């Protein structure tokens, strides 16, 4: 095992995949000389040259279009969209085109493009540079969605994404970029659709997404001293979603809490709760969604603190339903 940050782990996945396959390309805003505004693509231009590491204009539709066009011609482009908020700039190529190319053409085309982006909630970046809205793409058939919470998952999932045949939206979390974690020395690919049980427990199941995984783990430590045993599930990929692992856990604990940095309405938690309710209603005693309120992200730090969910909110919520 070695230790890398989340950002370094993603960088390593890109570099390894580019070495493995000449058809892997990287493109996006500021990803070349600068190495990305979060330095995730640092060093790739020097190693792989300007034909494979391409700075683009500020044109999100063109970035996705270029990645998609190259993908249907046999390339495996990894496009970076600087902030998740900017995905709305390229909604046409990302929602109306990319996920549907295989379907609309009766299977004649495949578009294995990976779209990397990050959400910055928690960095006081305001309403237009903070949003995390993965459920929008869970509602868009044809694109897989990954939201890794650790460096090892980020690396292993990205490698799987690049080698796959489908488009993937790969959502990173900016507040995690500097967090460190163990990375296997051997090449490790993490399959899509396989949740990670981060902690086993018997009283309550927390399904936590991205940054909320570490918050849930911290809350579980506190709760265990109160005698509450928490099971934490990190789905890792939201499409496909490992519903079976969640159901198995809820059948054991009878209580389901979801935790995410999205706004609560129609978020990931809403879908998780719906699936569990449909298939295991008899096992359920209580459910609760922890998420941001249906309010745009505020800028001022005290307001942001009040807005963003965290370990205290999770711990209190769990105490409230485990009685």
């Amino acid at each position, binding site marked *: 095992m070695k230790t890398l940050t989340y950002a370094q782990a993603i960088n390593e996945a890109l570099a390894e995949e580019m070495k493995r396959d000449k058809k892997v390309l990287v493109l996006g805003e500021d990803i070349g000389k600068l190495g990305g505004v979060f330095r995730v693509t640092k060093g790739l231009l020097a190693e792989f040259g300007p034909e494979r590491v391409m700075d683009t*204009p500020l044109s999100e539709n*063109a970035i*996705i279009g*270029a990645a998609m*066009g190259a993908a249907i011609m046999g390339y495996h482009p990894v496009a970076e969209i600087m902030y998740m908020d900017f995905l709305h700039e390229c909604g046409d190529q990302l929602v109306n085109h990319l996920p549907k190319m295989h379907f*609309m*053409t*009766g299977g004649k085309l495949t578009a294995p493009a990976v779209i990397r982006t990050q959400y910055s909630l928690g960095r006081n970046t305001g309403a237009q540079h903070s949003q995390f809205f993965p459920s929008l793409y869970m509602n868009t058939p044809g694109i897989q969605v990954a939201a890794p919470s650790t460096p090892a998952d980020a690396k292993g999932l990205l490698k799987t994404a690049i080698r796959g*045949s489908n488009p993937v939206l790969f959502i990173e979390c900016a507040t995690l970029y500097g967090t460190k974690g163990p990375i296997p020395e051997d090449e490790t690919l993490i399959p899509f659709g396989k949740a990670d049980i981060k902690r086993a427990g018997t009283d309550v199941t927390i399904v936590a997404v991205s940054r909320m995984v570490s918050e849930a783990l911290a809350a579980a430590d506190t709760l265990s001293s109160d005698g509450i045993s928490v099971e934490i599930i990190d789905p890792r990929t939201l499409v496909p979603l490992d519903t079976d692992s969640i159901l198995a856990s809820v059948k054991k604990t009878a209580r389901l809490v979801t935790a995410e940095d999205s706004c609560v309405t129609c978020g990931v938690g809403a879908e998780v709760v719906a699936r569990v309710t449909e298939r295991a209603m008899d096992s359920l005693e209580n459910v609760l969604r922890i998420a941001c309120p249906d309010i745009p992200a505020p800028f001022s730090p005290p307001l942001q603190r009040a807005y963003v969910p965290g370990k205290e909110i999770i711990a209190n919520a769990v105490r409230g339903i485990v009685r």
Partner: protein
Amino acid sequence: MLEEKVVELFKAGLIPGLAHPYMGQEAKAAGVSAALEKGDLVVSNHRGHGHSVARGVPEEAIFSELMGKDAGMCLGLGGSMHSTDLEAGVVFSTAIVGGGIPLSAGVGLALKLDRKPNCVVCFFGDGATNTGASHEGVNLAAVWKLPVVFVCENNEYAVSVHVSKSTLASLVERGKAHGIPGQSVDGMSVLDVYAAASVAALRAKKGEGPTFLECKTYRYTGHGAYDTGLDYRTQQEIDEWKARDPIKRFEQKLGVEGLATANELENIRAETRVRIEKAVKFAQERPFPSVDLLTKFVWA
């Protein structure tokens, strides 16, 4: 002739959904396709039947797709606005106005990286030039010197709104504003289109980057097979354009220059009619796809 049949079948309820006829605009598909070689590609749009025909997509596959039958080029999953036939060089046609332009830049990027001696032509209408995606796509192809030929079929109307109500700029100037050559050509003349497309394709293949061609043209029907377009245009205007019909003009030219006799032209028309009737019959006799198809191609 194919499109006349499309309108007839649409009105008879045999083509579900939407269909956007190409009548009046034939010189673009024909002229551009004549300038292309094997391996050259086309990205088309919602008014794309003509592009497919000109590239040699079998009429059986076109009519089958339009009718939602299993022998369609997209197995009935696409419909009138989507065609893909890689053998014929039709990569994709999009139903989102302007959406094919960024995609064509990506196809051009792949051709360039593969060092292929080919280009990709992207067809779109005047309305598309008002979308942000169109400017993003043309600009990216320009700055990366990608082998793309942008063919703007300016038929003057975006559904019902005249081009003069949408932009003060000339469309070719808009294209040229991205730092690439542009030319405005008579889109009712197949030879003019062919000449301009040949120059543009050659330039793309030589690695000199994209060209923006504005082809001034007109559609005889309304936006779709379902409307006449008379809510926003006069019959006189339609008739004036029809008097410059690209097929009739080309036939006259062939006659004047002694390249084809009236008999030969009539034979071509008759053969085409037979071919189309055969294709329609084929499509009508094909079954609809089985429901299994619904889940088959969501994921690759």
